[in-house]
């Protein structure tokens, strides 16, 4: 038994998720965007930034692997 997703599958999933979250966090301002979506915007922004950072780390790992492989 093995987890069926590779590191790069998760990296791709993180890329898509972070994009959705980053766009959502910019559009959910009660003043300039959707006023009916009553969520903690600050927390959403934090999660979006964190997901984007994790994705960038996976990109860095990928670059490192490309450079390192003979």
């Amino acid at each position, binding site marked *: 038994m*093995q*987890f*069926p997703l590779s590191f790069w599958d998760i990296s791709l999933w993180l890329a898509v*998720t972070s994009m959705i979250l980053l766009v959502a966090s910019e559009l959910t301002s009660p003043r300039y965007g959707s006023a009916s979506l009553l*969520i903690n915007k600050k927390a959403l922004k934090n999660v979006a*930034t964190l997901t984007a950072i994790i994705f960038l780390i996976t990109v860095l790992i990928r670059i490192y692997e490309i*450079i390192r492989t003979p």
Partner: protein
Amino acid sequence: MPQSIAKPKRSFSRAVGWTFLFCGIVALVNSIIFASSILAFIGLGLAFWGALLIYLRQEKYVKAMLIDSTAISSIENLDKIITELKYKGKGIHLPPEYFKDPKSELVYIPKKEGAEIPLAEETSEEVFSQKTQGMFITPPGLDLTNYFENELGKKFAKADLKYLQNNLPKLFMENLEIAEDLEIEIENNTFHIKIMNSVYKDLCSKAREFSSICGSVGCPLCSSIACALTRATGNPIIIEKNNLSTDGNVIETHYRILGTIKRQTEVTSAEVSVPFKFAGRHLGYTLPDVVGLPIAAFGLAILFWVGWLTWYDITTWGKSLFLIFFGSRAGEAISAGIDMRVIYYLLIGSVLFLSGIFMFFRKRLRAHVEE
């Protein structure tokens, strides 16, 4: 009563969150058992969004009209009291240093127009003072100023005007979203503050009907800014002029410092009003460090690697510097399949290192300049 109405909505979103999380975990477990990547993607998505729904709690928002309805009666009462008792002077926001009790922060309204600021010894904790022939009341915007301090995580008594000029607009526009824009102009001992499209515009418009409030003690918003200025300067402040544009979108207020008083210790001035709670630092505050340092470290690692490679090529193969940096590396891992050369790595490393260092030190340099 409103709590009992709001509760089912909150519990519904929580229930959805927990359901998503549970289904996600089940899908993830099944994906391992059946070796299915589709199930794994579904499980990952459901578990993540479920956890997100649980984490992102609902915020309480109220209609802007409620602000006006809640505050206007108190403002009207205050106006009636001041008018009927014939206190004609302009309200003077006095700093905490002015009072024996450093936790006090009051507005002094003189009985006569053009009266002078009372001496510190003459100030009173009672509302009506016989000595000064004036009244001391709590500023309508005092609690709002305390809230501003909590949001910014800094006591205005320990800050200066530059800090207010830099941070109040951000607070109004981004943190609290109570205005579309805020401008602060400082000229000698006067302050010109322009607030665009504020949620308080209706309240401000209504408060203008009460002559003893608008342009004297101030509506809660104008008074809160006066309190902030009083704390930052440590001097008495009056609201000199207050204008509202014809469409009601722009509130312009002129404040002026009245005289100068000697500050007592920083410690006493810091102990103002309600118990102080530092708000947690927003991720945006630490982001330059979180991003800047890894970028600089990554750039430095690339530069070290380029240095090592250059040294190795010179000592082992006896290559010239031109050939090392500009020579093609086709067939080697360095080329990464896109004909990457060592010079590109050198440039990438340098840019990453310099930009990371710049991001890291820029905040500190700015803080140093502000101090």
